[in-house]
């Protein structure tokens, strides 16, 4: 069945360094993917959604590229800030696009 895998449970980085959070997926349909971000005690909210194959999408300094050849949609940022500390989820539409299947989530912790 359809699934999403995020391999890192926790990523800890010093402010100003680059980050890449991994997301791979399995689906029999033509995929598009999402990244959601959840700050402490807040609701998850949409950060990014994929475009066409091999095209980069960007929002709020974060970017990701859908690669169908490797079934991946990794989230990147060139210089993390303290305010980027949050839980990040990768998500794949399933069930005829009526619902989202989420990965397990990656906590990004940015330290001074």
């Amino acid at each position, binding site marked *: 069945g359809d699934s999403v895998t995020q391999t890192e*449970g926790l990523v800890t980085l010093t402010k100003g360094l680059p980050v890449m959070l991994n997301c791979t997926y399995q689906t029999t349909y033509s995929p598009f993917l*999402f990244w959601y971000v959840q700050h402490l005690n807040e609701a998850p909210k949409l950060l990014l959604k994929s475009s066409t194959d091999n095209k980069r999408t960007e929002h709020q300094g974060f970017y990701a590229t859908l690669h169908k050849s490797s079934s991946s949609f990794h989230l990147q940022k060139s210089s993390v800030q303290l305010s980027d500390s949050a839980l990040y*989820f990768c*998500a794949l*539409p399933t069930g005829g696009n*009526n619902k989202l299947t989420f990965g397990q*989530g990656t906590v990004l912790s940015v330290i001074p």
Partner: protein
Amino acid sequence: GGIITQTPKFLIGQEGQKLTLKCQQNFNHDTMYWYRQDSGKGLRLIYYSITENDLQKGDLSEGYDASREKKSSFSLTVTSAQKNEMAVFLCASGDRGPEVFFGKGTRLTVV
């Protein structure tokens, strides 16, 4: 913009108790969802509803009931609370597609 309101924010129940969580949205979205969030397990779908009076089971529906009384509201019932259970239940809504908006959640603790 719209908002999703979940009540209560915190819920403490006893083992075996039947507990109801409520969700209201003013986006006028057709589809509403209930997800359960556990540490280290991501978001798992319990129930969803694509229109008023519709119910679809998710991957985690056992032990839960749901009700879509009207377009703007979607409630979830824990039929028998399990001792030491702790989780956050997130309600979400979306407009004929997979992009969804979430509420802040109801935190459940069972003693």
